[in-house]
């Protein structure tokens, strides 16, 4: 029997349908993944299933939990299910843990207050839960002393304590470093294997793959394709599903054979050392980037990738070693793309103002700008928007425009797509790679994603604890997919 | 020593963190010994135990006594001195100390103790320091005061609070006063400057045993708050009521209101040496321009206090009976024109040398009525073309401006019975060099002569004549322009009896008061 069954779910906001006709089921050991991009309506479905939607939204259809329609239940009764029948693994768990309470207490209170165990017994149980998730050493820590992955495990420990049979997970990989993503997927699968009914909402195909069970792909408020994970993910029927899957780096076709980078070296570092507060971050790194070359740096969090980039751009000074940049080239022709696109723009400035100021500052004629916008498929109507009114993909492309206006010789791209939906990520990165060839600029891309690096870069450098671990040269072959497809229509403003 | 001060800072902080639960008495209740407390509320704060600074409060509360007192006419009466005499040349005064009098520490009052107190007073900023004294000594049962020249009003100066007689133990080794150990009917029970003073009956007093056993003196600065203390029965004696609150208190069944004229005169001090005020006609014009009745009625709530001369009718010897001219703007303008002042294009007077009649009047807020009066004068003078700026400062700006010659005009209130004989104040204020609180750039040989003669101690009839002539000179020459006299407004609780008011404000006469019923 299905623990959770959603049927005919429709959500409207003042007459406008946001979610239409969603049907889906999940049961013990049969997780359900709602896969979709920002704005697809997947989070609204989760809200309806948990009964946490704002009252101004009109919800029709049925959500059966163990055969009872929880949509029809009064709010008090729904609230009574929390922690007993339903559990929720929140987005960005480090924000959802009480910042002023130690880990152990946050687990133990579930036993103490909800399950009514005595204090010592509660603590004992709580220690057990922490140990199960490898947190035995963290009982005395506060959430702010934990990494994102630890916080997520702590949240899971709390949810395990409650032993609610249905576990919801909302974007469990949001804000996590890429190397922690697979771990998150595996942990959710483990919960499912322990007999829980797991419902997960994500844009990350890798999670859906890891979780197995049922996958429902959502687009514009509708489920466009649904079925067992193996079927949907390996033999996608719907065009959108295919594109979504193709957007995963490992599925990217290899990039077009760029001419082997023969240009001069635009930037190089020799024996770079850098420490922060007495802690060495970089310990003797050499690196050079040529015109037209795409170099990727990968490595785990804290390995010094970002620091290396900042040293090359002159944003930081090295403690030892030298940075050489192409002589006679103005400093602003060494550009940077940022991880969080909205934060790289002045919040109250429209794109037009930003670009106009830039063209005035450097005497770049406006007629240089228009073709760039076209090349990056940015409609001129977007020019009059402020950053908050643009999507991440659009902003990252505007960021490219303003760098390209200055005829760059080098571009540092610091995790430029880690906060973007997969299709947008693919689009932006392919553009970047094309432009490197077209413009003859050296690109240094900082990323967690090995797969992405190997697809995109001419060379990949692995950093580990501030040193080179290895370096390899990607072999470029095959053809680049045409970019005439209007990817832009799939991304939307938030 | 160093360590001690370090410790004392810590102790001070520590002690103050645990606020002292004082031997407090609730205002309405009686004390633990059942003795009812007479509560006095007054606006006047007091500082340390030095009588030169705070003696007025000690004297009013009956803690300290002087050698002599004064009767309602200001004539000297015995207090700690039972008898006194003066040598024929007027240079040696003998004061015989009352026998059997004790200080609050039970030590006897000896001539040496009294002489010592007086020597302290003389060294301080006290009226006694202005007396031409050569020496003060004890001899037998007497205190001997030797003068360098005759000074008949000496007894009045000895009746001033700063000449209070304190016990030898009241003085520290450095000569500072450490405690108020007097001889009066009440001794200090709790000394909490600047706002509270509790006294208890001194059983060893030389006079008849007072009926009131305990009294407290509480300072309440806000006039409105004082009035409501009286109205709500939280004060038995409320001093210095403000004119605006008087009407309300008159209707209160709880208190009896008394308005006592006191010789404190609000006046305009002028720099007669300045080109603006050197001409008597100008000073007369200014005086004629003042609407005294208007000010007295609107701001002081009693038209009768409009002052056409320095001394009120309650001091007949110093009061000139001739009728006063009222406000007369036409006459004022005439006089100004005669003195060469003509209105300019904006109405402000200009004289032949192109000098505009603009002046600054300094006043201060110790007396709350001065500022509104100054504001009224400003408008009244503007009507005859005199532009006056009001500068609100500290009272000390006036003597300072007097000394450095920068002062042009000041509005102040002057107490003429600081020593019970107005002579004492007049000789300071209107002497040949003028005075900080009196004439500036003005002197009158005639007045000097009259005052000199008064100092010699003439027979009474002559005295009266000298006083009258002095008053007339001041009235005619206008070295200062009187504006209004004062009244002391007192609210007396209905359950007090035998309350009398001392016009010289030297005593509340607590020892005479009894509880009614």
């Amino acid at each position, binding site marked *: 029997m299905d623990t959770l069954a959603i049927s005919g779910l429709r959500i409207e906001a003042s007459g406008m349908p946001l979610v239409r006709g969603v049907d889906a089921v999940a049961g013990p050991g049969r997780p359900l993944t709602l896969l979709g991009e920002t704005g697809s309506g997947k989070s609204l479905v989760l809200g309806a299933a948990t009964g946490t939607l704002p009252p101004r939204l009109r919800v029709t259809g049925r959500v059966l939990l163990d055969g009872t329609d929880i949509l029809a239940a009064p709010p008090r009764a729904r609230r009574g299910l929390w922690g007993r029948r339903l559990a929720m693994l929140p987005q960005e768990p480090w924000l959802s843990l009480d910042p002023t309470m130690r880990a152990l207490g946050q687990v133990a209170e579930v036993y103490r207050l909800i399950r009514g165990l005595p204090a010592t017994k509660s603590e004992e149980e709580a220690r057990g839960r922490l140990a199960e998730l490898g947190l035995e050493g963290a009982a005395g820590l506060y959430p702010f002393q934990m990494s994102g992955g630890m916080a997520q495990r702590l949240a899971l420990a709390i949810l395990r304590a409650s032993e609610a049979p249905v576990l919801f997970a909302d974007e469990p990989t949001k804000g996590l470093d890429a190397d922690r993503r697979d771990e998150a997927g595996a942990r959710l699968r483990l919960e499912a294997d322990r007999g829980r009914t797991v419902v997960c909402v994500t844009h990350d195909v890798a999670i859906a793959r890891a979780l197995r069970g049922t996958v429902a792909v959502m687009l514009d408020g509708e489920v466009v394709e649904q079925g067992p994970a193996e079927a949907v993910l390996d033999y996608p029927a719907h065009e959108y599903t295919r594109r979504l899957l193709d957007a995963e780096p490992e599925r990217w076709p290899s990039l077009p054979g760029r001419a082997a980078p023969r240009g001069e070296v635009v930037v190089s570092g020799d024996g770079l050392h850098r420490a922060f507060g007495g802690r060495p971050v970089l310990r003797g790194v050499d690196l050079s980037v040529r015109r037209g070359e795409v170099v990727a740096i990968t490595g785990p969090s804290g390995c010094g990738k970002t620091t290396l980039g900042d040293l090359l*751009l002159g*944003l930081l000074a090295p403690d030892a070693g030298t940075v050489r940049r192409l002589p006679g080239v*103005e*400093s*602003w022709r*060494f*550009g*940077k793309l*940022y991880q*969080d696109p909205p*934060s*790289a*723009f*002045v*919040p*109250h*400035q429209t794109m037009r103002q930003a670009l106009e*100021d*830039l063209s005035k*500052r*450097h005497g770049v004629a406006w007629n240089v700008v228009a073709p760039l916008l076209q090349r990056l498929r940015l409609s001129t109507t977007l020019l009059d928007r402020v950053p908050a009114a643009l999507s991440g993909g659009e902003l990252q492309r505007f*960021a490219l425009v*303003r*760098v390209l206006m*200055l005829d760059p010789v080098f571009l540092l791209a610091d995790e430029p797509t880690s906060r973007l939906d997969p299709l947008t990520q693919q689009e932006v990165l392919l553009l970047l790679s094309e432009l490197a060839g077209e413009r003859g600029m050296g690109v240094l891309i900082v990323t967690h994603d090995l797969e992405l690096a190997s697809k995109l870069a001419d060379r990949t450098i692995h950093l580990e604890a501030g040193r080179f671990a290895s370096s390899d040269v990607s072999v470029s072959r095959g053809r680049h997919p045409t970019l005439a497809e209007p990817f832009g229509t799939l991304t939307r403003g938030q | 020593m160093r360590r001690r001060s370090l410790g004392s800072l810590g102790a001070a902080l520590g002690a103050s963190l645990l606020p002292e639960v004082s031997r407090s008495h609730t205002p309405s209740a009686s004390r633990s010994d059942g003795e009812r407390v007479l509560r006095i509320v007054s606006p006047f704060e007091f500082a340390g135990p030095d009588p030169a600074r705070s003696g007025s409060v000690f004297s009013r509360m009956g803690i300290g006594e002087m050698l002599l007192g004064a009767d309602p006419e200001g004539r000297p009466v015995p207090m700690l001195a039972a008898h006194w005499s003066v040598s024929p040349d007027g240079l040696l005064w003998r004061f015989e100390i009352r026998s059997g009098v004790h200080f609050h520490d039970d030590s006897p009052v000896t001539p040496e103790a009294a002489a010592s107190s007086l020597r302290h007073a003389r060294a301080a900023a006290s009226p006694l320091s202005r007396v031409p004294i050569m020496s003060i000594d004890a001899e037998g049962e007497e205190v001997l005061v030797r003068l360098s020249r005759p000074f008949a009003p000496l007894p009045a100066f000895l009746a001033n609070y700063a000449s209070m007689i304190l016990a030898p133990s009241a003085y520290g080794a450095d000569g500072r006063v450490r405690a108020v150990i007097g001889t009066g009917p009440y001794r200090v029970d709790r000394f909490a400057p600047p706002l509270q003073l509790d006294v208890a009956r001194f059983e060893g007093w030389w006079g008849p045993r007072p009926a009131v056993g305990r009294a407290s003196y509480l300072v309440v600065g806000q*006039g*409105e708050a004082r009035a409501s203390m009286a109205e709500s029965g939280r004060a038995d004696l409320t001093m210095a009521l*403000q004119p*605006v*609150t008087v*009407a*309300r208190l008159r209707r209160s069944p709880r208190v009896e209101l008394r308005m006592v004229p006191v010789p404190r005169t609000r006046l305009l001090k002028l720099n007669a040496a300045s080109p603006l005020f050197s001409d008597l006609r100008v000073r007369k014009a200014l005086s004629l321009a003042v*609407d005294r009745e*208007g*000010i007295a*009625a*609107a*701001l002081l709530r009693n038209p009768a206090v409009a002052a056409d001369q320095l001394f009120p009718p309650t001091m007949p010897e110093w009061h000139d009976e001739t009728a006063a001219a009222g406000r007369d703007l036409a006459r004022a303008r005439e006089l100004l024109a005669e003195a060469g002042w003509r209105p300019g294009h904006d109405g402000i007077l200009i004289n032949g040398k192109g000098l505009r009649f603009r002046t600054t009047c300094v006043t201060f*807020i110790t007396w*709350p009525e001065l*500022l*509104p009066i*100054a*504001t*009224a004068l*400003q*408008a*009244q003078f*503007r009507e005859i073309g005199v532009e006056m*700026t*009001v*500068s*609100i*400062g500290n009272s000390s700006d006036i003597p300072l401006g007097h000394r450095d010659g920068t002062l042009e005009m000041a509005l102040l209130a002057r107490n003429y019975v600081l020593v019970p004989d107005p002579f004492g104040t007049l000789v300071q204020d209107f002497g040949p060099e003028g005075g900080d609180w009196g004439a500036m750039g003005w002197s009158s040989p005639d007045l000097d002569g009259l005052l000199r003669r008064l100092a010699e101690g003439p027979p009474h009839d002559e005295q009266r004549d000298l006083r009258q002539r002095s008053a007339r000179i001041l009235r005619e020459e206008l070295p200062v322009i009187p504006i209004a006299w004062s009244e002391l407004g007192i609210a007396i609780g209905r359950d007090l009896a035998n309350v009398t008011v001392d016009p010289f404000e030297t005593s509340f006469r607590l020892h005479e008061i009894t509880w009614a019923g």
Partner: protein
Amino acid sequence: MSGSTLSPGKRTGLVLLAALLGFAVLGPWVVDADPARQVLAHSLAAPGAEYLLGTDHLGRSMLARMAHATRLSLLLAAVTVLSAAVPGTLLGVMAAWRGGWAESGLVLLADAVLALPSLLLVLLLVAFAPGDFLPLYLGLALVGWVEYFRVSRALTRGILAKPHVEAARLLGFGRGYVLRRLILPELLPALSTLATFGLGGAVLAISTLSFVGLGIRPPVAELGSMTTELLPHAYEAPLTVLMPAALVLMAVLGCHLLVGRGAR
């Protein structure tokens, strides 16, 4: 934010301030009576045909005095706020930008100023020239700059840490541009909130000073000094005190309502 989206509270605040401003600008001109003219015989007259709003203790027209007082009070408050806000903001931005000793020194100084009773500083400054305007607002500015300093420093630190500042520098923009286009516009909402509160605060502070006896010299009419001047007559003629007090209240209330949700 356009006018139509104002909340009722903000709208009330705006109306209050506009009314007050109108009274301040037009009042003295419309009333056209000398605020210093006295008729002692008409002291504390009740409102009526001759004196629309009655008279004060010296028989001066309350209406004329309040019109002039409102103008002066608002002007003084505005000057006070400006002379606190401009240096405070600039120092705050500078401290955040320069960092190091300059910042630590300024922060310590600001903390020390905070630790001292501000009334002490103002009293001291006012004691230099009692009754004059200049020391009054200088004194208030001397105390007031700290608030602007703290807020603008904290905000600037936040802004400077954001990637868009680094991006602007990398794109070749100079310090002037960063200050003009990046920092000041972002400080503006917070600063205008502070300034609006400050405007009300300055009106209050000036009236408090007149209460301690350091007002403005007569016969100048200022709302605070009017209130304290008439306070002794609160029982006989309550209106004379309540009217200027109500104007002070209007000014402060208007500012607070305009800024919106109370405290921070």
